[in-house]
């Protein structure tokens, strides 16, 4: 909405990618809605009808986003730093992939350490023991005392016997 000189006329590239994503999501819903057998029964509205409606709306919103991106430039975005982002996402992904084998304590230690690294704390000799301590504390309180079933692994086996 804020015209910002000559460079402001340049179409917003990100808007086209978002528009494409929305159209693709919409198409997926329309396709899936059409695949469902029509069992509208007495209501006249079947299980596939609402997904199709939402799908069409998403396609329209995608087109709207593309037009908007053509007419108006995107706002100037702050530069994103990929390294902390990768630390954080990497920590999440490794934790998700491994927590059911290595157990909650080690999984959360990895996540905690990577998250701390993402925010600039790269002293691993401090972060790893802290994460380990936090994981052990949570496991002791929630799994052992409050009977919440958390994934177990070698550490849980050695300390808590489960």
């Amino acid at each position, binding site marked *: 909405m804020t015209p910002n000189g000559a460079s402001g006329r340049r179409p917003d590239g990100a808007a086209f990618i978002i528009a494409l994503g929305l159209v693709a999501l919409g198409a997926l819903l329309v396709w899936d809605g059409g695949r469902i057998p029509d*069992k509208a*029964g*007495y209501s006249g509205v079947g299980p596939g009808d609402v997904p199709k409606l939402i799908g069409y709306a998403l396609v329209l919103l995608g087109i709207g986003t593309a037009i908007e991106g053509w007419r108006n430039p995107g706002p100037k975005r702050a530069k994103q730093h990929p390294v902390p982002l990768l630390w954080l996402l990497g920590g999440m992904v490794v934790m998700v992939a491994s927590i059911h084998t290595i157990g909650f304590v080690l999984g959360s230690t990895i996540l905690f350490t990577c998250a701390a690294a993402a925010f600039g704390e790269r002293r691993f000799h401090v972060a790893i023991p802290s994460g380990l301590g936090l994981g052990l504390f949570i496991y002791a*309180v929630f799994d*052992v*005392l*409050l009977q919440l*079933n958390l994934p177990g692994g070698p550490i849980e086996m050695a300390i808590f*016997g*489960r």
Partner: protein
Amino acid sequence: MKHALFGAMVAAALAMPAFANDYTIMAPASPGGGWDSTARTMQEVMQAEGISSNVQVTNVPGAGGTVGLAQFVASASGDPSQLIVGGYVMVGAILTNASPVSLADVTPIARLTGEAVAIVVPAASPIQDIKGLVDAMAADPGAVSWAGGSAGGVDHITVGLLAKAAGVDPTKINYIAFSGGGEATAAILGNQVTAGISGLGEFLPQVQAGTMRLLAVSSDARIDGVDAPTLSEAGYDVVVQNWRMVAAAPGLSDEQKAQVAADIEKLAKSAGWQKALADKGWADTYLAGADFDAQLAKEIEATTAVLKDIGLVQ
């Protein structure tokens, strides 16, 4: 504040004895539901009666128990300490969800409890008996709306069976699924629907308070203290029981299976279990061994047929 927290937690810790692990029971549902309370009651009684020194309960919710069942088959195979709770709802869910695993992939041990399905109308309804309701459905199936639990569940199946028994096209029934008996109860009390169908326990307090009229129950014989005919008594050959069972892991040796079955029999016959059943209002429908296997096979067959008739399964 820290001290109060710590004190309460220590108290909680002391209340729980630390024994070796003997049984792990999977409740393939979220905490709080019927399967979960069955599993937790088993846990309590098995420990209290000394059948097992330590019993753990795990919850794997999802899709009528089929998510838990699939995980159980994959992870517990050959391990005699693993048990899973299940029930009639699972039979239907396996079919409607086209589940890759079925009850044939586990070792059913015994049926433990069961509950009849009840058919009610709002107190203000002009319909007085089950015949009046079925006749209205025969005259115009669309005009009779049924409120019950989720599509393809035991309530839906019972309506389908009833329609079939009364000579009404089961695909024509106007069944309106609600998320569980509670929301269905509200719709019935608010006169939003013609009739309601759900577990007897769900409706009984309302019937006793006079806000609903109980027309029939789906058990094979009249239930003590419940003033309503069975469906077969009223001339419709329909017997449905929403039972719950316990099964062991696949791939057990005969000795292992016999050991588990013996433990479960000890549980079912124990005073603690009988008291728990009475407290919770569950009927004792213990059935084990070849009798249970035969019964299970028969019910799977009947359920498959009716789900095809309703049009939920191709």
